[in-house]
């Protein structure tokens, strides 16, 4: 689908200089002289590198028509994350560098949406929220609970999250995987 660059949205996929990229950020910017621009941060899904590019807001950009497939996250190794399509049992892998920091919050066996284009996996659609159990925390930590003092805890995937002092080991918390922020107790 062709759109004006001025309508590009975060999360969409485009081809930039011959390579498939995901739009990580797209912000309108008008320098006041010359046409208005759309300042985009594009993540190259092969190299995992971000590139900044200012499109003319009125130039046409091809947004790729991707599908998202419901898959189970099975495991990871040093470099890749592995997923399985539960209907076909086909396995797909994605580099950790491409999926990014959100993968710190993936629990084996969880369902996830994987974006596909031309039958190839591109990246995952991060869940809005994940629920994870705290396996390590300093429950004796003291602080001023009124002003919102925080402490670091380790969740079952091994990731570290900052939580309010009153949250304890064994409790399950919800986290926004994109920001890594604690959003509440479950």
């Amino acid at each position, binding site marked *: 689908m062709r759109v004006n660059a001025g309508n590009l949205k975060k999360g969409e996929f485009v081809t930039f200089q011959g390579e498939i990229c995901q739009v990580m950020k797209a912000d309108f910017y008008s*320098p006041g002289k010359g046409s208005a621009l759309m300042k985009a941060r594009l993540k190259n899904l092969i190299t995992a590198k971000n590139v900044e590019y200012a499109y003319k807001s009125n130039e046409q950009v091809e947004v790729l028509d991707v599908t998202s497939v419901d898959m189970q996250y099975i495991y990871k190794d040093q470099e890749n994350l592995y997923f399985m399509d539960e209907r076909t049992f086909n396995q797909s892998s994605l580099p950790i560098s491409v999926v990014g920091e959100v993968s710190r919050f993936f629990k084996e066996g969880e369902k996830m949406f994987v974006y596909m284009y031309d039958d190839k996996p591109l990246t995952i659609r991060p869940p809005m929220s994940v629920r994870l159990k705290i396996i390590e925390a300093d429950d004796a930590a003291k602080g001023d609970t009124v002003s919102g003092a925080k402490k670091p805890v380790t969740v079952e995937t091994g990731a570290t999250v900052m939580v309010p002092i009153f949250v304890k080991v064994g409790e399950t918390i919800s986290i926004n995987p994109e920001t890594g922020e604690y959003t509440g107790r479950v």
Partner: protein
Amino acid sequence: MEIKTTVKNLQNYKIYLQVEKAVQEFMEKNNYLKIDIPVLSPALIPESYLEIFETEFNYFDKKQKLYLTPSPEIFLKRLLVAGIGNCYYLGRTYRNSEPNSDWHSPEFTILEFYKLGISYLEMADGVLALLRFINNKVKNHKLKFDRWEKYSVAEAFEKFAGIKQTELFNEKLFFEKAKEKRYLNVEMPNLGVCTYEDLFSQILATEIEPKLGVSGYPTLLYDYPKQMASLAKLNEDEITAQRCEFYINGLEIGGFCTELNDYKEQEKRFILEAKKRKKNKMINHSIDKGFIEALKYGLPFCTGAGIGFERLVMVMANVTSIDKLKLINIS
């Protein structure tokens, strides 16, 4: 669009108020007269790169088109001609077709001020003094305003984008260079796809701006190619204009220029801008003939500066988007 109330922004909003107060104090100390301007104007000056909001006054069968002012310039320059002296406006302006983003809002606050008898580079000292004054009031220890990091536009294009001066000032070579750098839809301007101004802004935004104002000091870019002159006076070389823009943390905060006071040249630029508006099917507003008459009478030698007030507060408050400064957002 909808109305959102965000009380958690209170701390940032208080910094907004502090900066506002500091600006007013600085301006008063330096003998700038505060000017209030009408929000609704029956006529404007033609500008091809900004769209306006149009409304209508009705009284029985009497109707008149009115426009929300996109810039205080139209009023302040009339007053300068009338001999008001150094003056400033700090308040809202309105620009259509500019959606909300981290750095934009269709209604925003502008600080515009004019100082008589000085050129753009002399104004640079005054702007730095203003930034320092504000910073001392809000006590932001991350920013330093003891000096500028200065580059001419030609130096910045060479240093950050590898574009030589000979390429920057020659449209044909400039387009070739952009093509070599794999910019999209780069065609010569006569094909109507991309203008020199478009490409200049694209390269500036992509390759240069992220490197400006990030060394601990604000960066001043000066001497823009004449195609980017706007209403600035040209230098003696006749290929650059006496225009500056300044950056903090990669973000353009404001700019200033020695005001063009050659009436004939100004009229020529207005006609060109009006033509471009018509070609781009933009709102066909009445042209302020009184403004042109005033300029005929003679704008005094002066430098005018414009600062995006919310952007300035953003850097003072260490936040990365305008909406974090406001208690009420429309987005």
